């Protein structure tokens, strides 16, 4: 009798119920991304603004001479705005997953397993969303906690209690918009590089077009074509920042909702095991 039978054996063990495949996909995607040193460095770098803001809060809480640095609602709004660069880079770094799967014909493998298309999409969306929340929501909330810890009182928090839902809402909206957009683009191509270029194009080209059209027509309403500017309008409103938005808040919210909806529609159309060319 061989010490270890290397032939095929029937399996008599347990099988997991359906519905957990999204977690397996998400976990594997996450670990695969973390194998790249450059991605880990990016994640670490994305927390440098948090360190800087933490020092600012510490100094303003500890030394009266620099009280002008004390945190306000604007501080947290500005922090999330600064994190926009890292949101962009992390989105680009993680966003090509479906394109990779399409290039390797992996979709038909995934969808021949006991999982639904929705589970697959959630499995691909979850790591992007988790990392984006990790560079927006998590440091912003920790900054709020640092503020409480360094000041030794909850006075700031009780005066600005809206900051918790504001940080949550803005971080979630920004992350969901970025993640859905990049995954939708990813489902349209077999090239990760092309997806990155398209995404950068959507972000920067639309912003540039807005500025050009604004200069030509004098109307700020053209901001509606720029997702970044629409996100700023919504964020300012949520953080109660006094400003003159180029379009009403509900228009900005509508543009963001439409972008997310279109992204989901594209994913629903393109994430299929068999590509049918009419």
């Amino acid at each position, binding site marked *: 009798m061989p010490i270890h039978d290397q032939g095929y054996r029937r*399996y008599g063990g347990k099988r997991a119920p359906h519905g957990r495949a999204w977690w397996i996909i998400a976990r594997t995607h996450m670990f695969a991304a973390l194998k790249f040193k450059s991605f880990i460095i990016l994640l670490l770098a994305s927390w440098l603004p948090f360190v800087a803001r933490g020092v600012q809060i510490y100094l303003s809480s500890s030394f009266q001479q620099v009280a002008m640095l004390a945190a306000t609602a604007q501080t947290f709004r500005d922090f999330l705005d600064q994190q926009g660069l890292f949101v962009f880079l992390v989105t680009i770094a993680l966003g090509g997953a479906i394109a990779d799967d399409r290039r390797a014909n992996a979709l038909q493998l995934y969808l021949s397993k006991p999982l639904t298309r929705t589970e697959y999409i959630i499995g691909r969306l979850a790591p992007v969303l988790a990392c984006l929340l990790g560079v927006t929501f998590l440091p912003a909330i920790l900054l709020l906690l640092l503020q409480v810890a360094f000041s030794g009182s909850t006075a700031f928090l009780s005066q600005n209690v809206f900051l918790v839902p504001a940080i949550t809402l803005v971080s979630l909206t920004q992350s969901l918009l970025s993640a859905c957009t990049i995954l939708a683009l990813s489902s349209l191509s077999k090239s990760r590089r092309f997806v990155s270029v398209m995404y950068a194009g959507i972000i920067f080209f639309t912003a540039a077009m807005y500025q050009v059209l604004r200069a030509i027509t004098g109307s700020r309403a053209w901001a509606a074509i720029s997702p970044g500017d629409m996100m700023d309008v919504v964020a300012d409103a949520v953080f109660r920042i006094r400003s003159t938005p180029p379009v009403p808040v509900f228009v900005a919210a509508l543009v963001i909702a439409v972008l997310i909806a279109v992204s989901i529609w594209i994913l629903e159309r393109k994430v299929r095991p068999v590509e049918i060319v009419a």
Partner: protein
Amino acid sequence: MTSVVELESVNVRYAKNWALRDVTASFPSGAVGLLGPNGAGKSTLIKSVLGLVAPERGQMRVLGLDVSRSPLQIRSRIGYMPESDAHFPQMNAVSFVAYCGELSGLPRADAMQRAHEVLYYVGLGEARYRTIDQYSTGMKQRIKLAQALVHDPDLLFLDEPTNGMDPKGRDEMLELIRDIAHNKGLNLILSSHLLPDVEFACDHVVVMDKGTIATAGPIEGLKGPGGRVFEMRIKGDSDRFVGVLRSAGLECHATDEDIMRVFVPDDRGAPFLFQLASQEQVQVRHLRASVPTLEDVFAKAVGEK
């Protein structure tokens, strides 16, 4: 004999083209070959049964479960080896197969253990830590088989499993498939346009042509008793002679190298063929009783000349 797959009036359309037309078929347990020329609808049939392609009309049952109602339960009990290259990028073989096992419902530790075992079984034991991107075509075929086997399915769908393999690799793959079906107790449906592959590995065959079922049954039964097929080569007007054979009630189709295979449906045998040749004044250069092959079944079924 129980059926593992049953189809009833299944119609599938890609845009304006019908890929399956009113297909009604039953695949018995064991090893079944799904045979047909390229474009016959074999892959579409498999994808429909897997729930990857939705039929316009018709009902399908796999392992007693309705495809439209229980696709996930069905997919957890079947393994699918696709025709085209397919893998998960940037993974080594053992991670890839274990990942497939997990996706199919195995616990993580069991999936990893079975991944190692299955990779040894398909002959990739020594190469299991290499990334799949570095694999040769033959190795990619083997890894596709491994990922289909890892969760120990009750039914395997193998879509052109020997595509792109060298003769030695092809023989080894066919041996594996035969072993899976005949010694390991798995049911399998082998889709191929290569008749020898199906004949070697399978007991039953379903022949498809132009989106329909041309014929189906046990291979031995379809081939019929031996001694009624003759290989024949003549000198003369072969087209006219084929016409004569057909008008005499014999079936005939040409193969490579000017050899025609003639089906004599009764006991008239070789003397009758000589008699016809003599009447038509053609020389018989070669005449040999032959064993009916799956190629004959296929040729008869799809009406090749």
